[in-house]
């Protein structure tokens, strides 16, 4: 199998699906000749032409609405919002329209829309280009929310998202774009709503999202040297959530550390903690459910401050060790 980057895997998923299904098209800012802000759609204008790669001026609200309207009468658009920070502008169409049209019309219609957006910090882009708002959209019935972490996962999940008849918010962490991994050349699907145990272990469960999966795996390797055996669970889809895999893991280890980049207060970790506490896993907990997440600040510019604003590998090691050895 060949190794490609996460970014190339995203491009491949879209390209192959667009070749297979003429209803799929892209709409977004600077996705045409520019190739996309992160070069995800590089080369796609040449391949599919301006009829299917719709480059727009700065119009987040209406490009999202347009994608929704097109989906409403049978197309399968992929809308791109250049930075997740700007989904604030798209929210009216995403939350009030795309998420609700099917239900509001009593099931008369479907909205098979994918809204892709790069998220996350670490590039020095600071307050307006570094945020992670996945929990806002997890909160909306009618939306699905996917947050893949590996090149293999991102291709399979994007294919499934395009083929899903519901609006999917597809979140790509910027720092993952350059990561590499084995990816099959052919088209394949990874089902939405299925978590992945990225590392098996018995002393502690870490449930992590996006780049925190990578950092947790690194932390687990380090802690293995101390004789601690850490299990890392990657939900991959946040809504609908694969509670069964997570619950089984917590039942096995009795301790769970939740790690995500987004700000802790009101973050997805709270939802996860609630799900775990309400489940059968509660009776197996040996310690409190701990969340390690972003600090209560907008992302600052200074590099050190930026690093310290979100969990790093050392932070995960420290918290995981503390929890695995029952210091809390």
């Amino acid at each position: 199998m060949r190794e490609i980057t996460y970014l190339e895997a995203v491009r491949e998923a879209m390209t192959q699906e667009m070749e297979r299904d003429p209803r799929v098209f892209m709409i977004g800012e600077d996705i045409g000749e520019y190739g996309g802000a992160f070069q995800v759609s590089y080369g796609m204008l040449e391949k599919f032409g301006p009829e299917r790669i719709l480059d727009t001026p700065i119009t987040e609200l209406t490009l999202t609405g347009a994608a929704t309207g097109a989906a409403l009468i049978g197309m399968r658009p992929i809308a791109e919002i250049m930075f997740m920070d700007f989904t604030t502008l798209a929210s009216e169409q995403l939350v009030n329209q795309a998420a609700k049209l099917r239900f509001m019309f009593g099931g008369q219609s479907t909205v098979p829309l994918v809204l892709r957006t790069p998220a996350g910090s670490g590039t020095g882009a600071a307050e307006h280009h570094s945020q992670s708002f996945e929990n806002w959209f997890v909160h909306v019935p009618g939306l699905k929310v996917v947050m893949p972490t590996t090149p293999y996962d991102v291709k399979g999940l994007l294919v499934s998202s395009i083929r899903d008849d519901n609006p999917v918010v597809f979140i790509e962490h910027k720092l993952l774009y350059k990561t590499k991994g084995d990816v099959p050349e052919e088209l394949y699907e990874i089902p939405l709503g299925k978590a992945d145990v990225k590392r098996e272990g018995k002393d502690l469960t870490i449930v992590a999202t996006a780049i925190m999966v990578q950092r947790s795996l690194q932390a687990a390797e380090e802690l293995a040297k101390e004789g601690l055996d850490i299990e890392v669970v990657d939900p991959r889809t946040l809504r609908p959530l694969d509670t069964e895999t997570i619950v089984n893991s917590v039942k096995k280890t009795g301790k769970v550390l939740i790690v995500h980049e987004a700000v802790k207060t009101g973050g997805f970790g709270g939802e996860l903690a609630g799900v775990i506490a309400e489940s059968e896993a509660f009776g197996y907990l040996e310690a409190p459910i701990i969340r390690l997440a972003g600090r209560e600040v907008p992302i600052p510019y200074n590099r050190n401050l930026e690093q310290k604003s979100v969990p790093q590998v050392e932070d995960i090691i420290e918290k995981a060790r503390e929890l695995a050895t029952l210091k809390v």
Partner: protein
Amino acid sequence: MALTKEKAENYLLQMYQIRAFEEQAEKSYMAGKIHGTMHLSIGQEASAVGSISTLEPTDYIIGHHRGHGLTIAKGADLNLMMAEFYGKENGYCRGRGGSMHIADVAGGNLGANGVVGGGIPLAVGVGIALKMQAENRVLLAFFGDGAASTGAFHESMILAVLFQVPVVFICENNQYAMSFAANDWTTSKKIAAHGEIYGMAESCSTDGNDLLEVQSAVEAAVKRAREGGGPSLIVNDTYRWRGHSKSDRNRYRTNEEIEEWKKKDPIVKFRKHVVSKKILTEKEVEKIKEQGYADIEAARIFAEASPEPAIETLEEGVYAP
């Protein structure tokens, strides 16, 4: 297009059905039978029927929250529409949408919308899809003077022109957003001028209470769209007799103004026209009026007898399987 007797009968019947529906809606509401609120379009019948009469059955409309007239003009089943208004299970939207969100997707009605300006970006997308699907269909996208001030409207004009979508954007200027007078910031002519500013081939404003004038302007725009000439913006200058919603106390306008506009009743205007042109007799017109009201009465009986949605079905229809 020529006004045949058959067409005149259809248009008149539809306008009377709209008028009767709105009046019945009001009665049912005041009798405590309707949950929530509603937005009546009494006085705007010509804008709806005049515009939509230009469409083929396979064309689409998308609307706003004052959309009962649009829905009837697009040929809705009055029973199913009334049942939805009453929130019943066999309404168009299974009682989930209500007055503000009635849709008949199979019938080409892509729905009313609860957000002012919510449907305009959707209209751009529908236009993009219609172009891609290349089946020669067009979309009429209705919105009000209230939406003409939103970012959504302006962004949509830009993208509509950029992608040359087969959409006729129709602004029903009924002189007030909710209570904010359109004339305090614009006029029908000025709104229409945006079409040109944003690069549309044609745009214009009409006397929205003159069915034939509206029809003529929209017809031309529809033809242009279908032939690949891109989007148009038409502003129908009209008036709503009732307040914005049921809770409106009409503090922002005078009774004199309302009475002035009532004299321009679009149904009366069209009636006078078809009778004077001897297309229909007074007696025939009266019979059509009775028919319209009878249709609505039947719909009311149907709706009131229809079942409530079962609580167990609450979470159905959120996701497509």
